[in-house]
């Protein structure tokens, strides 16, 4: 049998190419995941210990006030302490806006606790001096000696840039570093990661801290921190592996189908071997060894491809983000061995069922006249029954998941009902193809009708070919619809929390009359409205401008009137609410008049209180323009617009609040998430399309005589190519449309079961453009997959084709 095995490997290698490609993609996916997560881990963990090098103990789980008390205590006792944390602040360099939100961290007073690496200039000696991260100012018009304004309003800090530093630890870095007195002076929520403490007082520190704070010896803390970062990367790696698993599952379908077709074509060879004395066991062993050989070769190739890709991606990422947290990875033996084993296993498992069918071949089959094309496979009754049962159970579970908001029931229901659809495929898919082909057949000619017949002549093969694409498309559309729906829910939240894109509010005096016109003239501004207001003093919150929105419906987002308080209400910015609570009452005084108003907290309109126009009219007879509310054009760049309007605000002595930035950040996150998931699922779709091309290619071989007959009877080359293209198109479009329908249904269930719990009445939003794009892309890809088989089929002359055996 060894001669036979070697000869058949040699002869059939080309036909295994697509199966090999599927394994290569799956295995290299795993290897890339391992390399990327290793690079990320190495980058994140590198230098974690540096900020704590001079410390004796490290305090965590403290807030800014507690951290301040620790620093005070260290000063009093002659110890030293450094607060590691950051706060997002608006930063101006000279008279230009540097960034709306820049992370500002601290630099210790004690040289032993200073961990930033000086690159240029010097480190700060005390308050009024600041250093910047060298990567953060790269390419920006910023130089040592520039004056820097950090923060807004009364609490802002003016400092001189004295040096540029580099950050050895990716997990704790900021863009600017102030000394502690300045950092503390910023009116902000300082997020404290940890406090490094050095000195004799370290041992007694724990007793002085509030409950909940953690004190750890330095080495123990560093170890914990490294483990924590590693765990985060591991979670990411596991998420990536889920996608690798999907790709491998699709590979199994493609490989199983390839083997089924190849073995069907070789049935006569096997029967002949049986005739000349090969036992069933010998044949079975021979084809299984074939599968193992294919698995080993392609998995090894996958390791090589994955290694190349992984290192390439890391190099690209390092090039694009020099300050990013990536180090060069070290290949892990365990991952490589695992990927190799998975690749071989996937191939062998996929080949198992087809090889079992091989040995059922009757030796007499070899003696029958050539009818190799009538390898008709139908859907067994058991299979159909199982499919229907699985769909019923799955739908039941999905219904349960909606009523109980249960994610486990949802996943189980999804998997069960989808398996049911796959089992039911040999009935469902050919029926759909017939329907579509029949519909189009009226306008198209013979090629389409032939293609329809060809596509459905072998229901099980058709179903298996489309199943792989079905998996990828179902998941992709489910994710697209799910994300579009959560996007609309998120947008509603954004509309409520940030009704105005940008606001300019007078700081000490009303705004000049021309401000609104100057704002209107800024590119990217869709409309701007000046708001009447007055300065009032509010019991418990101090003095601030009161503004009354009127005629602002064209400017605010969300439902009309969303940004207009009811008479008798006053909206205060959340961060100025302090001791007041939403729903409580305050007295508001303006020039001797006063009103009792109910408080509601909110945000998104700057440092002012918002009241109804009637309320303002009761409080003052001489309103002045205190604020300008701005609506940005759709697609306006939040940073550019913010910078331009900041210039206007500066000269008009106004404060700018940029909510558009928040909005575009959230939108960007969703865009990135969508793109990432679609790309990862795209790998599975690519494998599926290779599978379609492969099935077609093998069918072309199988139908060599048939195609020659058609050519003899008058089918032109072009018509033959069109027939094959139409077959691929029918397969891919039917799979895609079916997948889209199922995907949308799954997304609907997911929104009902999960999102609606978080956001009331979240509607299912269908991203029509994206769904159409999925179908078009799959259709075009289907056509592309038919290119090679069609060319090969059309090249054969009728005379040559007729003499084929």
């Amino acid at each position: 049998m060894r001669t036979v095995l070697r000869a058949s490997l040699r002869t059939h290698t080309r036909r295994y190419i697509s199966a090999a490609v599927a394994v290569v993609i799956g295995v290299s996916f795993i290897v890339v995941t391992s390399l990327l997560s290793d690079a990320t881990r190495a980058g994140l963990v590198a230098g974690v210990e540096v900020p704590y090098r001079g410390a004796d103990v490290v305090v965590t789980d403290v807030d800014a006030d507690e951290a301040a008390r620790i620093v005070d205590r260290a000063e009093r006792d002659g110890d030293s302490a450094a607060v590691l944390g950051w706060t997002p602040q608006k930063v101006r360099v000279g008279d230009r806006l540097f960034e709306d939100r820049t992370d500002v961290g601290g630099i210790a007073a004690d040289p032993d606790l200073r961990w930033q690496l000086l690159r240029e200039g010097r480190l700060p000696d005390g308050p009024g001096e600041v250093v910047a991260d060298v990567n953060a100012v790269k390419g920006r018009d910023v130089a040592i000696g520039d004056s820097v304004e950090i923060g807004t309003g009364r609490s802002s800090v003016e400092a001189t840039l004295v040096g540029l530093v580099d950050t050895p630890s990716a997990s704790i870095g900021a863009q600017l570093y102030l000394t502690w007195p300045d950092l503390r002076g910023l009116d902000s929520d300082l997020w404290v990661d940890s406090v490094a403490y050095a000195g004799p007082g370290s041992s007694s520190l724990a007793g002085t801290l509030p409950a909940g704070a953690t004190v750890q010896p330095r080495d123990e803390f560093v170890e914990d921190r490294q483990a924590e970062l590693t765990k985060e990367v591991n979670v990411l790696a596991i998420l990536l592996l889920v996608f690798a698993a999907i790709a491998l599952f699709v590979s199994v379908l493609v490989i199983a189908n390839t083997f089924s077709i190849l073995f069907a074509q070789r049935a006569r060879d096997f029967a002949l071997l049986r005739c000349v004395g090969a036992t069933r066991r010998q044949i079975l062993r021979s084809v299984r060894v074939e599968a193992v050989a294919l698995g080993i070769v392609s998995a090894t190739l996958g390791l090589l491809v994955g290694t190349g890709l992984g290192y390439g991606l890391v190099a690209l990422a390092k090039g694009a983000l020099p300050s990013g947290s990536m180090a060069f990875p070290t290949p892990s033996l365990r991952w490589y061995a695992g990927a190799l084993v998975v690749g071989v296993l996937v191939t062998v498992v996929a080949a198992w069922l087809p090889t079992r069918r091989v040995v059922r071949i009757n030796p007499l089959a070899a003696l029958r006249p050539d009818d190799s094309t009538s390898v008709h496979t139908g859907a067994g009754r058991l299979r159909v029954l199982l499919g229907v049962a699985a769909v019923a159970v799955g739908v039941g579970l999905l219904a349960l998941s909606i009523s109980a908001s249960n994610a486990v029931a949802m996943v189980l229901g999804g998997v069960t009902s989808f398996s049911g659809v796959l089992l039911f495929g040999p009935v469902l898919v050919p029926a759909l193809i017939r329907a579509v082909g029949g519909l189009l057949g009226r306008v198209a000619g013979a090629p389409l009708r032939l293609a329809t017949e060809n596509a459905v002549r072998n229901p099980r093969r058709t179903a298996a070919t489309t199943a792989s694409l079905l998996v990828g498309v179902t998941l992709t559309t489910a994710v697209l619809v799910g994300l579009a729906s959560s996007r609309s829910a998120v947008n509603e939240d954004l509309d409520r929390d940030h009704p105005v894109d940008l606001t300019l509010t007078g700081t000490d005096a009303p705004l000049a009359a021309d401000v609104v016109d100057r704002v209107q003239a800024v590119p990217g501004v869709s409309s701007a409205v000046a708001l009447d207001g007055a300065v009032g003093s509010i019991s418990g919150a101090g003095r601030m401008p009161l503004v009354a929105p009127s005629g602002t419906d064209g400017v605010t987002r969300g439902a009309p009137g969303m940004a207009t308080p009811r008479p008798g209400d006053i909206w205060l910015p959340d961060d100025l609410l302090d001791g007041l609570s939403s729903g409580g009452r305050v007295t508001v005084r303006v020039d001797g008049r006063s009103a009792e108003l109910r408080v509601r907290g909110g945000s998104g309109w700057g440092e002012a209180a918002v009241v109804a126009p009637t309320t303002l009219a009761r409080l003052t007879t001489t309103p002045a323009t205190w604020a300008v509310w701005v609506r940005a054009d759709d697609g306006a760049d939040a940073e550019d617009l913010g910078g331009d309007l900041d210039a206007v605000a500066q000269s008009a002595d106004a404060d700018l609040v940029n909510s558009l930035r928040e909005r575009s950040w959230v939108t960007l996150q969703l865009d990135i998430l969508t793109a990432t998931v679609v790309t990862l699922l795209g790998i599975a779709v690519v494998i599926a399309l290779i599978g379609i091309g492969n099935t077609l290619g093998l069918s072309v071989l199988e139908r060599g005589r048939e195609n020659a007959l058609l050519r003899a009877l008058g089918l032109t080359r072009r018509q033959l190519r069109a027939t094959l293209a139409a077959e691929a198109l029918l397969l891919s479009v039917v799979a895609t449309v079916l997948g889209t329908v199922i995907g949308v249904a799954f997304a609907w269930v997911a929104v009902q079961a999960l999102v609606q719990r978080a956001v009331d009445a979240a509607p299912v939003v269908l991203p029509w453009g994206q769904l159409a794009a999925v179908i078009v892309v799959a259709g075009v890809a289907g056509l592309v997959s038919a290119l090679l088989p069609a060319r090969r089929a059309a090249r054969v002359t009728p005379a040559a084709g007729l003499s084929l055996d």
Partner: protein
Amino acid sequence: MTTPTLAASARDLTRVYGHGDTAVHALRGVDLDLPAGRFTAIMGPSGSGKSTLMHCLAGLDTPTSGTVTVAGRALQDMDDTALTVFRREHVGFVFQSFNLLPMLTAGQNVLLPLELAGRRVDAELRARYDLVVDVLGIRDRLGHRPSELSGGQQQRVAIARALVSQPDIVFADEPTGNLDSETSAEVLGFLRRSVRELGQTVVMVTHETDAAAYADDVVVITDGLAADVRPVVAEPAR
């Protein structure tokens, strides 16, 4: 259009496969005239080049040199698409085996050449279809797929398909090669009836003397060279 007295003719026809040392000269300068309205058999042993000759005459293969004229048209200069269109308009085929597409019914197989040509089945064509279906006695088999038909029935469906478009010439390549003698006689009888009753021109390639006996004329080909067309002397005994 007047019917040419010659259905097909070849002049100095050669066909070489491969080149150099491995070149095979299948045809070495064949001159041949096939009269219209006759049943001609091309005979010869295996490897004599008779199938190649038929392929070249039918526009399935392109000769290396020489000319082929079928239905008054020169084939040797046509490109693939022109040849294909020519075939579906002027030529009918019956092959030894694998004549029918497995996924189509017998009726669909018969109509296939018309469908490929994009012709609408009008009253005239429908009448022709009914005529050949009845002559060949396959009316009750039209809804069956090839796998449900016997070998003889399959060949009758193939003959019906070759006749339905009233081609100028029908080529039959070993049409009885896979059949038992009784069914062979039946199929050959149908081919002869299509000449006698329907006025078709049929050219049959065969290596069986019994089959050739059904023809009006016989061309013997040996080693890539054709002997003259000579009439069949005796009618077969049966």
